[in-house]
């Protein structure tokens, strides 16, 4: 192995992936891409093994190998030609959830298939029964938007017009979607172009040998990391409070079998698949296990299919972690996914206690809305990510107001949000006392209040943690719960969605009609605390009080703070 060339090549490939993401961000139309960055770009070899990926959305990083493999089983490499681009979003065929659209473009060198450029992005509008794709009351996949099996959206470099027409006829925002789909194509076009330059510089055999070595290197590094975790069976269970349809909890159960340099993540014992849209797909179950283990191991290990080889995932079909057709699934990748990550990390907290954080908020808020803009007459739709507190760690407090663990996305800046959509954000602030008490305090969630400026906006949401708080670790306390409230125009009362609109759930609802002058207030969960709060140095508690992170009352009650405040 030529270690120097391997390092240079690995950095080059990762840079290409990052550049693909920048093109996607800069050329897309929707805020979910150009502000939130809800996408990932990668490069795969001719077998579909991931060789490099950019650090955008972790959910899609772990899902990419399965996605490419599934596509290649339906469109064999013998049927791929130069200039083809394959599109796919089917959650039952390796996808993560319906909004996630995967594009992959074969890269040919002298007529020989040498690899793939891959881009995955979450489209803000996909049709279905609710604007924005997140229908909290869906009971089957057909409510959740257009499902696309692997199809060629471009053939030999030419648009497949029939596919485009079908795609754009089935969404509420065809102009936006057209721009976003073009941005994803631009990303894989750039990936192909840059990868061809790498092949020209190093030659086919050198690149092939070096990427093979790179995958083996990552595998060896991951095996060495896993060796440091004591052998055993580590178990954990976490609960999702409701599926929006039935008023009952669903369990995510995980047994992590650590055996030498390998690990089996086994979800046997998890609840049967739910009636509502909280079911994870196989892609989710796989990606969540990878995501958790990447969080607990050396971050300098190159992310590729090699580092996933020592990890096996057992996700029994027909359960909440591996949904069967035709049950709904859109919230599986946004709410169940981070909960699975948390469950795997919770299990491993018994083996590597100092590497695991307490529970994070584990939801992206998923506030989606759509309507016709009174000024432009054009239909708008938006997927608005709400951010949460992360859990306290053995060495630090949790992060405040960041996207959940599988997203790594940004919130839309207020100025952009108010320019693009007919809302005014009246309030956006960290929620005092939402971080779980601990020697290392949980991160804070936030509270956001929106005033509706349009005659009418149709809103839906798919979130969690309104009833069950994020757990603490090693004696740390629970993080704060979330809430969504509505204040109707002319009223001073704040009501839940159950109270105001007769919905089944406060956290999962669809197609609520918000009128001009109505307000929506969302409070997101905070992270759990790590370690005994009484062991938190009084100086830090005093600082928390001064900064408004912790109230004086909570400081005295939960932290045993006895100091005077200046």
């Amino acid at each position, binding site marked *: 192995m030529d270690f120097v060339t391997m390092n240079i090549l690995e950095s080059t490939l990762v840079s290409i992936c990052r550049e693909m993401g920048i093109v996607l961000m800069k050329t897309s139309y929707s805020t979910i891409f150009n502000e939130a960055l809800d996408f990932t770009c990668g490069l795969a070899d001719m077998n579909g093994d991931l060789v490099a990926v950019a650090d955008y959305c972790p959910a899609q990083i772990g899902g990419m190998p399965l996605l490419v493999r*599934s596509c290649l*089983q*339906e469109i*064999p490499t013998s049927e791929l030609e130069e200039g083809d681009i394959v599109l796919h979003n089917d959650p*039952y*065929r*390796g996808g993560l959830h319906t909004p996630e659209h995967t594009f992959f473009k074969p890269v040919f060198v002298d007529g020989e298939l040498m690899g793939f450029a891959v881009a995955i992005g979450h489209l803000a509008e996909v049709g279905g029964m609710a604007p924005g794709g997140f229908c909290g009351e869906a009971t089957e996949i057909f409510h959740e938007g257009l499902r696309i099996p692997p199809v060629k959206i471009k053939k030999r470099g030419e648009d497949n017009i029939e596919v485009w027409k079908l795609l754009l006829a089935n969404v509420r925002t065809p102009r936006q979607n057209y721009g976003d789909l073009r941005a994803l194509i631009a990303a894989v076009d750039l990936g192909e172009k840059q990868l061809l330059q790498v092949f020209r510089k190093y030659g086919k055999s050198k690149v092939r040998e070096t990427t093979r070595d790179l995958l083996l290197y990552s595998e060896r590094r991951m095996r060495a990391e896993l060796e440091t975790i004591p052998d*055993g*069976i580590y178990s954990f269970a976490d609960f999702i409070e409701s599926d929006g349809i039935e008023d009952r909890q669903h369990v995510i159960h995980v*047994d992590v*079998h650590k055996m030498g340099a390998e690990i*089996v993540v*086994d979800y*046997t014992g998890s609840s049967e698949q739910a009636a509502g849209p909280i079911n994870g797909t*196989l892609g989710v*179950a796989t990606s969540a296990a990878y995501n958790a283990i990447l969080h607990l191991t050396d971050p300098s290990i190159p992310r590729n299919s090699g580092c996933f080889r020592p990890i*096996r*995932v*057992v*996700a*029994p*079909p027909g359960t909440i972690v*591996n949904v*069967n*057709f035709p049950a709904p699934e859109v919230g599986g990748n946004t709410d169940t996914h981070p909960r699975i990550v948390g469950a795997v990390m919770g299990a491993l907290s018994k083996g590597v206690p100092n590497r695991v954080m307490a529970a994070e908020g584990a939801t992206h808020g998923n506030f989606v809305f759509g309507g016709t803009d009174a000024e432009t007459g054009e239909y708008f739709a938006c997927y608005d990510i709400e951010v949460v507190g992360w859990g306290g760690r053995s060495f630090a407090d949790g992060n405040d107001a960041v996207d959940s663990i599988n997203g790594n996305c940004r919130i839309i800046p207020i100025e952009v949000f108010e320019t693009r959509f007919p809302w005014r954000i009246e309030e956006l602030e960290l929620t005092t006392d939402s971080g779980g008490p601990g020697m290392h305090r949980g991160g804070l969630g936030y509270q956001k209040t929106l005033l509706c400026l349009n005659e009418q906006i149709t809103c839906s949401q798919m979130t969690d943690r309104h009833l069950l708080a994020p757990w603490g670790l090693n004696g740390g306390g629970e993080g704060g719960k979330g809430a969504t409230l509505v204040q109707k125009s002319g009223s001073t009362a704040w009501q839940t969605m159950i109270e105001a609109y007769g919905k089944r759930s406060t956290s999962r609802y669809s197609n609520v009609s918000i009128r001009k002058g109505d307000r929506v207030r969302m409070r997101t969960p905070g992270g759990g605390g790590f370690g005994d709060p009484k062991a938190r140095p009084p100086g830090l508690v005093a600082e928390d009080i001064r900064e408004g992170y912790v109230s004086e009352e909570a400081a005295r009650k939960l932290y045993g703070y006895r100091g005077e405040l200046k």
Partner: protein
Amino acid sequence: MKFSRNGLYIENYTKCTNCGVLIYEAYSKNHVYHEGKIYCSQWCVDWKIKRELRTQQARRET
């Protein structure tokens, strides 16, 4: 995965009984049948037994 005769739609999503991966029988070289059920590989047949043994042993040790 069972496709329709014309190849245009899926009649049955075939998954491994144990680990849940999709099995495209036309391409899979490793899938096996055990007690009337399909598994993606012999590893998955063996894992069901091994898991039970490991769990019992862990219970005894605690």
